[in-house]
């Protein structure tokens, strides 16, 4: 992986938040909400052979010169938070190389902990009355409880979570504190899931301001027309 830094920021002691490709893209959508709500600045561009490329207009600004690529990093110095937003899947056969390179960056920048967001298939949650929010953390996490999230067993399989467990496993091997937050969801219009998940994760991270019990989440303008253009009435 090649990282092109666009800003000079000392990331020592920062938390890294990254989504895994997952059911309904809930983690990626929630990550978009964090970036937009915190008005995070683009910190770096990433290139890795395993990440399927995309190229388009900026997801967060109306600036014509700004573009969006498949994998980018954003930083919020105030909250000591860095986000690695990956908008496309990673080719499975190249996944290990990708993960190793992510953690080379984590170690070289002295990042303090890794927070992985993902989701799981709702039909796999057999206790329907249980909260759909769960977490899986390693022993190195100083914090042992996360309000609103139930703990999942260490050997638990998270179906539909993409490569989240591979990231978590690698972090544990390298003695880096790591936690996976996930929500059980179904495929469909996952915008409500993303909003709820972002709010829940924010209860732990406390980065997006909350006033009178209302979280100030901002939706990126790029979420328009998610499901294609409106149907043309002329065809009826």
């Amino acid at each position, binding site marked *: 992986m090649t990282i092109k830094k666009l800003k000079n920021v000392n990331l020592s002691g920062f938390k890294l938040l990254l989504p895994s490709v997952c059911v309904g893209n809930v983690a990626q959508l929630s990550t978009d909400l964090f970036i937009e709500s915190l008005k995070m600045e683009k910190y770096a561009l990433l290139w890795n052979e395993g990440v399927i*490329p995309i190229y388009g207009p900026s997801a967060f600004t109306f600036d014509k010169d700004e*573009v969006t*690529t498949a994998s980018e990093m954003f930083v919020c110095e105030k909250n000591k938070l860095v986000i690695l937003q990956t908008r496309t*899947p990673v080719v499975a056969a190249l996944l290990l190389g990708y993960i190793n390179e992510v953690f080379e960056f984590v170690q070289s920048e002295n990042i303090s902990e890794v927070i992985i967001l993902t989701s799981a298939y709702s039909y796999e949650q057999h206790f329907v009355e249980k909260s759909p929010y769960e977490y899986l953390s390693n022993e190195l996490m100083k914090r042992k409880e996360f309000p609103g999230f139930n703990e999942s067993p260490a050997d638990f399989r998270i179906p539909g979570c993409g490569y989240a467990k591979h990231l978590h496993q690698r972090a544990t091997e390298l003695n880096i504190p790591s936690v996976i937050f996930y929500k059980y969801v179904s495929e469909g219009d996952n915008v409500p899931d993303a909003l709820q998940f972002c709010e829940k994760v924010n209860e732990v991270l406390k980065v997006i301001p909350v006033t009178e019990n209302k979280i100030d989440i901002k939706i990126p303008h*790029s979420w328009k027309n998610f499901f294609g*253009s409106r149907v043309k009435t002329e065809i009826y």
Partner: protein
Amino acid sequence: MDFNFGELNEPFSRAFFEEYEDFSVNTEFKRPTWDFVNEDYKKKVSNSTNFLLVEGNNAHSIMENSLLKGANLIAQMKKHNIKVYHNDQFFIGIIEDNKTDNFAASIAKLLSPWFESAKMCIILSLQSTAEYKNDNAFQNCVIRSVGNNGQNIPTLEVPNFLTGCAAGICTLRKFNELQCSCFIAYIDLHDVISLNSIMSLLKTFNISVTGNITLPTNIHKNQFYL
């Protein structure tokens, strides 16, 4: 997913992930390779050369009697329907296959000798109008630019984006802080009017497009079903 009646909504921007839970650590990634490369091209690559990529369904058949007239084939990858040509002005990459996503980054890297040092890099991606998301009325041919190209072409609106090797090349050019004129043409009917607007776009870069446009014969007549 919220489908509208009659709409073909391919899940190209949704999670089309592979099964990461069960994949073997030893899974081998077979990197694409050129079937044929004319090594003479290396003598011709310089900072003064230009690079043009046309990617999309029927790209080759549309361009073969116009843009590619008189151009020499210098490299080929049969498995992914990729050909690289050279004429007096340009190295021209033609990618027919839109289903190279898993290999897109690798193929973009393989094309880098031609576009990395190119003075001018023009990317044209051809996509179906069914993939164009916007609020406006349906049009047969919509051409949009990505980034500021200094051209009088409207910019692509979110949430649309480029995929495939075209996206890979644009990303690599951006990475190296090099200019890249990137366009996306949503065309449904491969008619003369639509194709002429694409040729007019190429002409704005002083690309000589001579000869006749060939209308592809193997296309679907429309994107709707009843």
